[in-house]
C-alpha cells in the first residue's frame, strides 16, 4: 500500500479510545465483530488527526479479528475515511444541485481564494483543507459545509471569513469529544 511509505502516523490507542471501541463491540453479536468496522474506523480516525494510515488500518483489523484487506477495501469505498493527512480544519462544501442553486460554486471559489489553495489541497501550515463533496442533506439551508462533526449552514462570504478567524483562534469545535 503506497500510503505505508509516503506518510508516517503516530499511533496511540488511548484508554478512552479502547474503552469506546469495546463499548461499540457490544452492539453486535460476538461472532460478528466485523460489523463494528465503520463505527470503529470513525472513532480511530477522529483520534488520529482525521486520517487512517495503512498501519492504523492493520491495527483495526487486529482488533476486529479480520484481514487487513477487509479494512482497506472499506476505507477506500467510503468517502469519509481519509487515507492521507488532511488539514486540521477540513472544509467540506456541498456542491450538489440544491446548494449550487443557492451559490455554492461562488462560495467555494471565494474560500479557495481566501485560503490561497485549490480544491483538494491543504494550506502549507496544515491548518485548512477544502473539498467539494456531494449532497450532505442540508438542501434547505444551502449553501453549507461540513466541518468535522458539525454543519455550518446558510453560508455567506462573511460567515466563511468568520469561521476561518474562529478556527485560527481555536474556537471552533470539530468533534464532540
Amino acid at each position: 500500500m503506497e500510503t505505508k511509505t509516503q506518510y508516517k502516523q503516530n499511533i496511540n490507542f488511548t484508554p478512552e479510545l479502547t474503552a469506546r471501541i469495546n463499548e461499540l463491540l457490544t452492539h453486535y453479536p460476538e461472532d460478528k465483530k466485523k460489523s463494528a468496522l465503520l463505527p470503529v474506523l470513525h472513532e480511530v480516525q477522529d483520534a488520529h488527526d482525521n486520517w487512517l494510515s495503512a498501519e492504523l488500518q492493520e491495527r483495526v483489523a487486529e482488533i476486529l479479528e479480520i484481514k487487513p484487506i477487509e479494512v482497506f477495501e472499506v476505507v477506500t469505498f467510503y468517502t469519509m475515511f481519509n487515507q492521507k493527512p488532511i488539514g486540521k480544519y477540513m472544509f467540506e462544501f456541498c456542491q450538489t444541485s440544491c446548494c449550487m442553486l443557492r451559490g455554492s460554486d461562488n462560495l467555494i471559489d471565494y474560500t479557495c481564494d481566501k485560503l490561497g489553495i485549490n480544491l483538494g489541497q491543504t494550506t502549507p501550515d496544515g491548518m485548512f483543507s477544502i473539498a467539494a463533496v456531494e449532497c450532505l442533506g442540508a438542501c434547505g439551508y444551502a449553501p453549507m459545509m461540513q466541518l468535522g462533526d458539525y454543519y455550518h449552514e446558510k453560508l455567506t462570504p462573511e460567515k466563511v471569513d468568520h469561521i476561518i478567524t474562529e478556527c485560527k483562534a481555536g474556537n471552533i469545535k470539530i468533534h464532540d469529544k
Partner: protein
Amino acid sequence: MGKKILLDKIHIPGIKTYQVYRDNGGYQAVEKALSMDPDVITEEVKTSGLRGRGGAGFPTGMKWSFIDKKSGKPRHLVCNADESEPGTFKDRYLMEHLPHLLIEGMIVSSFALGANSSYIYIRGEYMWVFKILECAIKEAYEAGWLGKNIKNSGYNLDLYVHCGAGAYICGEETALIESLEGKRGNPRMKPPFPAISGLWGNPTVVNNVESIASVPWIVLNSGEEYSKIGIGRSTGTKLISASGHCKNPGVYEIELGLSVEEFMNSDEYLGGMMNNRPLKAIVPGGSSVPILPHHLINKTAEGNDRLITYESLSDGGFATGSSLGSGGFIVYNDTACIVRNTWNFSRFYHHESCGQCSPCREGTGWLEKVLHRIETGYGREEDIELLWSVQAKIEGNTICPLGDAAAWPVAAAIRHFRDEFEYHIRFPEKVKNRDHFVDEPFEKVKYLLQKQNII
C-alpha cells in the same frame, strides 16, 4: 392547517429530552402495543395504507407481513436513516428534534416483527444527530423502555445506532445491510429478499425513519383512522423537504392530497418564489425523479389539479408526470440552467455508483462527461441522441435502482428542455464561463434558436 401527526409536538421546548417527551404523551404507543398481539399491529399498519416514505412507496404493513417468522432465526428491524437523496433532509429534521418519536416507533415496530435487536443506520455525516440518538437511546434504557423484559411484558429489545461513512448507495436496503455487516456497500441480488435473509442471514425488515415514526400514531389511533387522512391510496401525512429557489425552504408536514399550487404559494408552506422570480421547474421527489417543467406543475397533462400524492405526481407516467419519491422538493426559477443541473445530478450518480454493474459504473461516467462538455460549450450536435441512448441502456440493466435513478433525470431533462440543450450546443460562446442563466434567463435568449431554424 393540515393535520400533523409527526411534527405536532416539535415546538414544545425540550421535546428532545425524555422527560418532556414522556410528559407530552410519549411512549403511550409502546404501553398499548405491548398488550396487543404483534400480528394485530401488523394488520393495523396494513389497514392504515402507510407506504414506505424513503422513496419507493411500498406498503409498510405488507413488507412486515413478508418477514419469515417460521425459521426460528433471530429477526431484526433496521431503520434506514441513510438519507442522502439530493433535496431530501426530512429524516434528519425529525431525528434532530424528535429522537424519541423514532425510538418509540422502533420499539413498537420491533415488537410487531418479533425483533430483539434492532439498528438505526444513520449516514456518517449526520454525526451530531448520531450523538442525539445515542443520548436518547440511553435515556430510553434508563426509563425501562429498552432492554430486558420491557415494562414486565416479557419482551426484550436492544436498540443500537450505527453510522455509515459517506455512501449514497447504502440507502438501498441490501447495500445498507452489507454496510451494517462491515463491508463495502454493494447491493445484493434479490431474491432472497431481506425479509427471508437479511442482516447476518437473518430475516430483516428495513424501513425509512418517517415510516417508522408514523407507527406510534397508527397504534394509538388505529389504522383505519390513519387511512382517513389523505386521498385514495395515498394515506396519511408526508414530510416534504423543500429547497432551491423558493421563499421558505425547510421541512413541512402535509396531508397527502394537498395541491402543489397551494404548497408552492401558501404562506403556511413555501410562500412563493425567492425574490418573486418566475418559476421554471420543480423536482418533486428528490434528484432521482423526473423534473417537471412549469406548465406541468400545477396541472397534469389532462388539466386536473396536480396534488401531492403518489398517484397525482406520477399522473402521465414519465412523459408528463414525475413521482413523489422521498419528498425532496426542489424549486427552480428562470435563471436556473437545466443542463448544468442535469450535469450536477449525473456527477452525483457517477460519484455514488458502487461500481458493481457495468452499465451504471460506466454509463453514469459517460453521462457526466457528455453533459459536462455540453454545459461548458464543447457539445456536439449528436450529443443529445448520445445521452438518450446511454441513459436508455442503463435503465433496468442494473442490480439496484441507482442505475434507474441516474437515467431518469437525464431522460426527463431532454424530454422537457431539449431546446436548452440545443442552445448550449449551437451557441457555445454564450455558455462558456457563465454561471447558470443569471444574467440572461433562457426565456430571453430562446428566440435565437428559432431564428436559426428559419435561416
